[in-house]
């Protein structure tokens, strides 16, 4: 039995917003793979919950008229991976979330929950950052949009006021068209593990040179982060070995990893130096390109 004081099962977004407005202490639960574990551990014991599990309006992936891809935050990781639009347009994202937890967890954990928990190790986060994802937040007073990068407030904290819900994850056409991507999850085990470091790259090549590139990390700092200096450093260059080295070396100056029981700061720094080049290399291969 879970130590839950009260639970409201919302069947729609307005119902969920009303339930949140009625109880200022209520916590949102979606897939439950984080919230229920925190209740079990006692960290959230005696909490009030508003369940948004399975709300149809938060499911699905659609393409808007301008080519923007809108991902429902209530999609489970496996629903994201299997969706035809994701496979066709955002394959790197589908593959990234296919590395979270294990198969059963990917059938319950949601991509929205992964973002709203605000943890730096979220497997969806780095890749979404390299896609310049925008988040649609709905509250009682209306809808707002925020760039995902600006959504993070600190470890485990996001700019989501009580009474607000993440209702869409948006990737504009200009941010995915012509790009290829790759996410490397470095962990101690291949399954059921949390990233020691996560590294995502999306790149666009023109005439064999890097026309645009985006690099993001999880666990390289308190929140998932982009590395603008490293991105700038390799612009216009051929993606050869020297460029790949420069990519990681420059990124090292932008990150702030710490020592945890999983790995030391020094080891994470070594990963920051090494993984961007490998992710860039693989991203180009994923896009059907050739690399020296």
């Amino acid at each position, binding site marked *: 039995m879970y130590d839950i004081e009260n*639970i409201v099962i919302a069947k729609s977004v307005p119902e969920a917003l009303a339930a949140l407005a009625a109880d200022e202490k209520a916590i949102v639960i979606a897939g439950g793979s984080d919230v229920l574990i925190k209740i079990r551990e006692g960290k959230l014991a005696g909490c009030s919950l508003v369940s948004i599990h399975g709300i149809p309006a938060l499911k699905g992936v659609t393409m808007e008229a301008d080519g923007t891809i809108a991902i429902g935050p209530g999609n489970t990781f496996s629903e994201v991976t299997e969706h035809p639009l994701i496979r066709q347009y955002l394959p790197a994202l589908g593959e990234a979330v296919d590395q979270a937890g294990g198969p059963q967890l990917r059938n319950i954990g949601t991509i929205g929950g992964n973002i709203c928990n605000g943890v730096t190790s979220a497997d969806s986060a780095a890749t979404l950052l390299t896609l310049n994802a925008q988040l649609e937040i709905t509250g009682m007073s209306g809808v707002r949009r925020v760039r995902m990068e600006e959504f993070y407030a600190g470890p485990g904290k996001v700019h989501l006021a009580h009474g607000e819900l993440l209702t869409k994850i948006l990737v504009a056409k200009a941010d995915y068209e012509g790009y290829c991507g790759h996410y490397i999850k470095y962990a101690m085990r291949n399954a059921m593990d949390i990233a020691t470091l996560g590294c995502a790259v999306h790149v666009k090549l023109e005439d064999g040179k890097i026309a645009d590139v985006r690099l993001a990390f999880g666990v390289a700092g308190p929140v998932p982060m982009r590395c603008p200096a490293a991105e700038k450093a390799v612009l216009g260059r051929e993606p050869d070995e020297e460029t790949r080295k420069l990519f990681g070396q420059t990124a090292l100056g932008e990150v702030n990893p710490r020592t945890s029981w999983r790995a030391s700061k020094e080891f994470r720094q070594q990963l920051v130096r090494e993984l961007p080049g490998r992710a860039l290399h693989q991203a180009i291969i994923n896009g059907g390109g050739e690399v020296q």
Partner: protein
Amino acid sequence: MKIIHLTVNGKPTEVAIDERESLADTLRKRLGLTSVKKGCEVGECGACTVLVDGKSIDSCIYLTLWAESKSILTVEGITGPNGELSPVQQAFVEEAAVQCGFCTPGLIMTAVELVGTGKRYTREELRKLISGHLCRCTGYQNIINAVERVVNETHKAIGK
């Protein structure tokens, strides 16, 4: 107490539950389906795996409230009318994929899910697909042998 309606192993079922209970507890304690094992209770070991609308989930971290109107399948629901073993169970027996047996019901349900897709999988893919289960006895080799065998046999029979 709250009454919920769901289909359990093909049977429409109405059950009074506490809103705070997990599906694992409801299945075990209220419906007597003790094939559902409680191992870690934090969604890591896979012993409590059941299928909800055909998808494998850890029933220890699934609120029973969410199962309203859904269809649940446990090992009790895959045997024949006179208790005959299903092809998945038979494969586990023949490949000696069972030692203490605690992880077995969960693994069987994942295998049932995989067989149900009608797809063919490589051994490497199967390793990833059963990675949500912990077995402390067998070293997994016989388990993968059993899953590989039944998945491929089914594919040959009904394959798409």
